[in-house]
């Protein structure tokens, strides 16, 4: 046991010395390896953070949302609906929600108008951070919209919404109920949809099913379903990007194979010497294994740290368009850093396994150099 450890340490000593001696050669491979880890890690870190963000946003949304449908399209909820809903067992805290979209021709973007509780005072609005950025507005500024009746209405900006949930709030405009109804000429007593919670969250699906039976013209949307939809959306995008990066992975494998099989004459000679003076094929393989471990860990650490900085401090500039963007109003993220065990393990395997597989055979070939080769040269 003791001897085994001593042997490994001695081999490790030699490995470190050898790596240091061939800096230039190893640095090239290390750089490519680290770059690959960087790309893959950026993708996974970014999607993991987005997912977290979406979950955080959804955590604040109501458990079930009820929409009324007319001919398959989302319609206003008429007065009286809310009371019928309240009578169903298990339904709690029914709330009528008011929201809608507004197209701003100035910056060609859609805003989401919404009435919240508590709402800004009449005549004032609170706006999302992205909108504030694009229109150059701060607290106290004035913003005018052309209402659905055709006249121009000016609102004073009472607040700019805080950053943390920017994914959801980027394009928000919060207004009071009175302003909302007046601006959109929204019929009194009607709501955009109804939100409610369920006494026992496990029963949400059952209650929703019952509700749709009682109110055949309604559609219920569960928070759980949205969560799932988001998750699969992100998973799918992440998978797509990674599939594209599979080409890079393959190229890296080929590079590693090439590097390992194209050992320099110097290195071959060295292995020959080691074998002649009493190293065994197994010892060379162990030494090479240490070399691989050191290389993999260094590259992984470098790549991962760089990716972490890129995603959480650099705003993931390289990936944003692929993984996030769909609107003019880009949420500018300060993503909450997330480290995830599964992602780490996946990434470690995804990069180190192909490397190992690629160098196995060439390494073995080099390790089985005949011990008497140095005497014959």
């Amino acid at each position: 046991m003791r001897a085994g450890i001593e042997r490994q340490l001695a081999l490790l000593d030699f490995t470190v010395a050898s790596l240091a001696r061939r800096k230039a050669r190893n640095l090239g491979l290390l750089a490519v390896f680290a770059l690959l880890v960087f790309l893959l890690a950026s993708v996974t870190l970014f999607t993991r953070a987005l997912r977290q963000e979406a979950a955080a946003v959804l955590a604040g949304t109501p458990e079930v949302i009820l929409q009324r449908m007319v001919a398959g399209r989302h319609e206003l909820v008429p007065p009286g609906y809310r009371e019928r809903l309240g009578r169903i067992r298990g339904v709690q805290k029914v709330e009528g929600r008011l929201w809608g979209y507004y197209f701003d021709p100035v910056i060609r973007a859609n805003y989401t108008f919404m009435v919240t509780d508590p709402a800004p005072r009449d005549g004032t609005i609170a706006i999302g951070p992205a909108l504030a950025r694009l229109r150059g507005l701060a607290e106290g500024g004035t913003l005018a919209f052309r209402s659905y009746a055709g006249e121009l209405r000016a609102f004073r900006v009472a607040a700019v919404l805080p950053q943390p949930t920017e994914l959801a709030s980027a394009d928000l405009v919060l207004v009071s109920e009175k302003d909302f109804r007046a601006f959109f000429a929204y019929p009194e007593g009607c709501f955009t949809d109804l939100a409610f919670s369920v006494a026992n969250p496990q029963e949400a699906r059952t209650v929703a099913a019952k509700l749709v039976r009682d109110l055949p013209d309604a559609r219920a949307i569960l928070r759980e379903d949205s969560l799932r939809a988001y998750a699969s959306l992100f998973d799918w995008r992440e998978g797509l990007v990674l599939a594209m990066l599979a080409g890079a992975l393959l190229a890296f494998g080929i590079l590693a194979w090439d590097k390992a099989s194209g050992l320099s004459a110097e290195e071959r000679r060295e292995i020959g010497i080691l074998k002649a003076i009493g190293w065994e094929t197994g010892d060379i393989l162990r030494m090479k294994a240490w070399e691989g471990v050191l290389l993999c860990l260094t590259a992984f650490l470098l790549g991962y740290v760089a990716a972490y900085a890129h995603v959480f401090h650099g705003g993931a500039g390289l990936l944003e368009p692929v993984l996030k963007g769909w609107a003019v109003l880009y949420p500018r993220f300060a993503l909450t850093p997330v480290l995830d065990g599964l992602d780490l393990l996946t990434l470690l395997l995804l990069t180190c396994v192909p490397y190992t597989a690629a160098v196995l055979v060439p390494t073995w070939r080099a390790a089985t150099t005949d011990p008497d080769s140095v005497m014959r040269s």
Partner: protein
Amino acid sequence: MILQPAVLTLLLISALGVAVLLAAAPFALQVIRRWDLASGSELQLRLERRTYLFSTLVAFVMALQLAGILLFVLNADRMAVQFPGAMCAVGTLNAGRFGFGALLGQVALFFLAGMWLTLNHADSLGRDYPLVRIKYALMVGLLLPAAAAVLALQWTYFSGLRAQTLTSCCGSLFAEGAGGLPGDLAALPPGPVRAAFFGCLALAVAAAWFLRRRGGYLTGLASAAAFAATLAGITSFLSLYVYEHPHHHCPFCMLKAEFHHVGYALYVPLFLATAAGLGTAALQPFRRVPTLSAFVPALSVRLSRVAAAGFLLVLLVALGILWRSHLILS
């Protein structure tokens, strides 16, 4: 098919394992046919060099399997959010036809590779490499098909997965009266299962410790029994104490942070101990091979110690869980 990094990685590593063994197969067959240690011919020297490659390859495959099992379970847990009704790994595994099959296949392959490596190590101690033919016959005849089967199971499982599939999770799957193996496990009467759990573990510790010099078969048998009994015990009653909930029979949830990852403290020693116990059994048929007779006992003793220590640790962790738990079952 759900395209996801962890799934892609799992398929990649399984495929690599199969590819590696498949590529080695023709050479292994050549070793079986042409091995002649007395000869100094080029061919023999070439074959000897190859043996190093094969040992490395199988060790690689085994390491991959170990990482694969962990990844498989962690990933299943994570994917649960995509299947209505799934709350943890069980739901995900249950969402496709071969979820549990793939997991069991991976576990089996891990143990097979472990036994092979034990034989391989013993063989490398004998000056005439006495097990070389058997070893490679096992590699081509057993490890390769097993690895291929695992890949096929994984592929069928993952390609059959559809998001939104309604599934049932640990709550219903491991519920008493749910039927099927998991349901039966949960429905087992806690008294006898508890007795079997502690009995088998104690027996395995005892067998591994007291029979360490000559009882390889018994140790192996006791290890396999202890492995099965531990899994049954975890599902049937230990889980209840971990979750402090009278109906939560899940063997996977305890790997999560909410339960302080206590599952690892059970599963890691369990897997190691079982692999070591099975390893001693694998050595037994060859203890009388002349060039090995000097080494097999020492190797057996070492493996038995690992097995005894591992099972003892499982036992202690289980007792610790029972002791610390606030659950009181009448």
